[in-house]
């Protein structure tokens, strides 16, 4: 008996490293998983992995910053699985390195549109479905960089702080509807995204491992484990929390 048996989960950015691991884990624990991404090749791979492991999955392309697409996505999920119990909001854009002064307004705007307005939209249309089925929970992916700063990432950091607050807003406003909302703030997790700024994973490790007292980079499964806990009834008294899964990065 899986820990998410009978649940319907929607996972954005499911073609990516972290959310892909979450989607597979949820599938293995008995949830029906709607895998969402903007990249067809990667999202079909995740959904295929879940099915070939004996789980139940569907997939959909969706740009979460577009209201019509999000509305359609929620309808499609309810059509496929009958309800939406769990939403993992992981879709995020990350700007090229810029300071506030050198960053063009369009770059700033794109990151805000995906990372916070996209999360707002998914919540906006998923909540009424959760209310209909008697409750649900959100797991919103923030970042250590929503709490501490790093050079050259103003838009990413501002949105990741905003994620913590929209999480608390949803948690507060819908607590009476049996809807929980929590954030996860990952440290440096070993995914392809880290290679956008540093040429090799070895170079990333050399730079980042010393900042993580636990002595290694995080793995996508570290985040998937935390997400599973927050999605399951084991975390039934947790709402509005900001869970750091960062190997101690922010404690020093």
């Amino acid at each position, binding site marked *: 008996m899986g820990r998410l048996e009978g649940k319907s989960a929607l996972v954005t950015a499911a073609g990516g490293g972290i959310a892909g691991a979450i989607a597979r884990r949820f599938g293995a624990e008995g949830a029906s998983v709607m895998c969402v991404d903007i990249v067809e090749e990667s999202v079909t791979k995740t959904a295929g992995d879940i099915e070939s492991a004996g789980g139940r999955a569907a997939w959909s392309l969706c740009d979460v910053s577009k209201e019509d697409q999000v509305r359609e996505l929620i309808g499609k999920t309810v059509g496929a699985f009958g309800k939406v119990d769990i939403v993992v909001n992981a879709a995020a854009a990350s700007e090229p390195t810029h300071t506030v002064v050198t960053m063009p307004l369009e770059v700033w705007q794109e990151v805000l549109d995906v990372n916070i307005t996209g999360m707002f939209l998914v919540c906006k249309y998923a909540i009424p479905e959760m209310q209909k089925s008697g409750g649900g929970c959100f797991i919103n992916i923030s970042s250590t960089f929503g709490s501490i700063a790093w050079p050259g990432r103003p838009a990413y950091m501002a949105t990741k702080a905003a994620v913590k*607050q929209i999480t608390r807003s949803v948690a507060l406003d819908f607590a009476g509807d049996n809807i929980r909302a929590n954030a996860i703030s990952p440290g440096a997790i070993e995914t392809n995204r880290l290679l956008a700024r540093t040429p090799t994973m070895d170079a990333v490790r050399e730079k980042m491992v010393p900042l993580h007292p636990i002595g290694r980079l995080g793995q996508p499964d570290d985040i998937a484990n935390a997400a599973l806990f927050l999605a399951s009834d084991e975390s039934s008294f947790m709402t509005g929390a900001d869970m750091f899964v960062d190997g101690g990065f922010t404690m020093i």
Partner: protein
Amino acid sequence: MGLLDGKVAFVTAAGGNIAGATARLFAEEGAAVACADVAEEDVRKTAADIEAAGGRAIAMVCDVTDEDAVKECIARTVAELGPLTTLFNAAAHSEQRFKVADMPVDMWRRTIDVDLTGMFIVCKYAIPEILKAGGGSIVNISSTYGKIAAAERPAYCSAKGGVRMLTKSIAVDYAADNIRCNSILPGPIEGPRMLQRNPSIEAVVARHGQRLHFKRLGQSIEIARTALFLASDESSYTNGADMAVDAGYTAF
């Protein structure tokens, strides 16, 4: 001898309660103050008050979401008052009360645009001038609700969370350029806008209940004095901080 003698400050929302008090205090302490606001009559009044008290000020109409307007206002500040050293970002918009599921997307965008993107734009164009002046101090207004949630204020809470990290981003990126950047998180501050949502000040105090440890609202001058500290050299080792001025509201 004032704490801000020889400084030039750009103050947004200077026609308002908190920023108006700050603009006047900065001027009393010797700064020349560019007062910017969307409300022409209000901002002219603040500038006139400063001049009547023997200070130096100019008034300008400025919508912080308008990139061209901001660029022009910063240029005018430098042309008329001299090298820019000090920035006080207070322009903010607060949406009507809605939960995420009921909030129209346009309303969400408006708050994010003014409170977060507007601050980004002002910083983007002010910082090059502060660099030319050899450094300075930026003070950004976040909120108690950038740290904890308020009922039915998802956009405001998210934007104010974003302000805290935008602040830290600038603090890190420009520390070597002798620019400090800090945020203030005011608790409930008494002002005319409050009476638009509430029948009386007493009703506001009662609504906040036991979290309001001083059993009174904050006064705008109490935020202005904190801004003065952060703008002056008395805070020369304070950078990237978020300073709660809330009588312990968020400490409880």
